[in-house]
């Protein structure tokens, strides 16, 4: 799979397959972000609206901007719209305060960075991606992963170590290419 910026450039050229790639690479992270603000029930709807906007405005994507940042900026706006549309006189002010203003932008950026790492994982060979997902996202120890996969612990150590170095290089390369600021 391409890097985020490469997906963004393909989207700007109106390649429909790029939209699918963006959904596969960033959809789960965007959903986690949206659940935080609009709740699990509405998050799926807001995610669809986000990708609709991504497709509509794909020509505006500038490769100098990180693709994940661009995506999460759109998601952030759709989340704000969703909260405003609720029209309750009594609103959850803490959640609203967390979403709008400086805190909200920082949170969106933090999720964008997390999504960038998650998307880079998808570019690793399957057995390396699996080793890192079990280590970091499932919180298993190397010994537990060896038992889970039924492979020697030495194999797990080698895979995880190789995958970690490779992932670090992918993310660092992406930051250099995609306007790290």
């Amino acid at each position, binding site marked *: 799979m391409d890097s985020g910026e490469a997906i963004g450039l393909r989207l700007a050229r109106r390649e429909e397959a790029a939209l699918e790639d963006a959904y596969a690479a960033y959809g789960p992270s965007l959903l986690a972000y949206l659940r*935080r603000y609009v709740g699990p029930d509405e998050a799926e709807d807001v995610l669809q609206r986000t990708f609709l906007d991504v497709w509509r405005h794909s020509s505006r994507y500038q490769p100098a901007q990180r693709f994940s940042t661009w995506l999460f900026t759109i998601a952030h706006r759709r989340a704000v719209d969703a909260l405003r549309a609720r029209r309750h006189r*009594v609103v959850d002010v803490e959640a609203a305060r967390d979403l709008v203003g400086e805190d909200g932008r920082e949170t969106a950026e933090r999720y964008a*960075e997390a999504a960038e790492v998650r998307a880079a994982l998808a570019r690793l060979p399957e057995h390396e991606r699996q080793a890192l997902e079990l280590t970091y996202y499932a919180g298993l120890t190397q010994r537990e992963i060896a038992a889970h996969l039924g492979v020697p612990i030495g194999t797990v150590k080698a895979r995880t170590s190789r995958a970690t170095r490779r992932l670090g290089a992918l993310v660092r390369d992406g930051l250099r290419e995609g306007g790290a600021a």
Partner: protein
Amino acid sequence: MSAHPDLLALLRGELSNPLAAEAGDHLDGCPGCRTELAELATANAMLSRSARTLAARPPTVEAVPALPPRPPFRARQRRALGLPRALGSPRALGLLAAAATVVAIAGATTFVTRGPGDPGQPPGPQPQVSAPLDPVEGAAGGRVLMTTGPAGSTEMTITTSDLPRAHRGEFYEAWLLDPASRKMLPLGQLGPSGRASFEIDDRLLDRYSAVDVSLEADDGDPQHSVTSVLRASYDAQRPTTS
């Protein structure tokens, strides 16, 4: 020089203290391992932060101001009884709660007609608990009164004041809440006058420590709307059952 240590296990905190110390000694004299450690540490930091961010729980009920912490002895008692700390997602909790039939909604006048000042009736039960309902947002208020009910139950009466009138298609709902585990159990709707009474199994009541009043949309969704308007903590006042 000793064998090269498992640097990723070192970074992940999987080594015992003696092995971590041994790895530190090895790193002092091994430039190759130091270079590799720097490379691994960068990716480890990125992955750890990503996993921590994406695994963060959505702020649902904890998005509103926290209630005072429960007294420690209650937590110990909870563990001793083997009670669960959390049950899962709010939707699952809502469905679970909807399936439970242990909470019966009594008529809104249940407590009043059995009150101590009612002429011609024997003296009624005195409130065991009287806790103020404080506003989470807005200027409304109220009170939760609990009295001993029949056969291991408690009569709970919720009285509110100054709640904004619910719009068409909306209503106020009362919940039991355990702030520590975010566990919630729906009790039922407040009436148009902002009052409601419930008969609740004492063992169930022991598993929570607060009452929450929320504004809900009549959309068939049993889940808490996240729009809490009032909260009361009863845990510190109430004698426990076992």
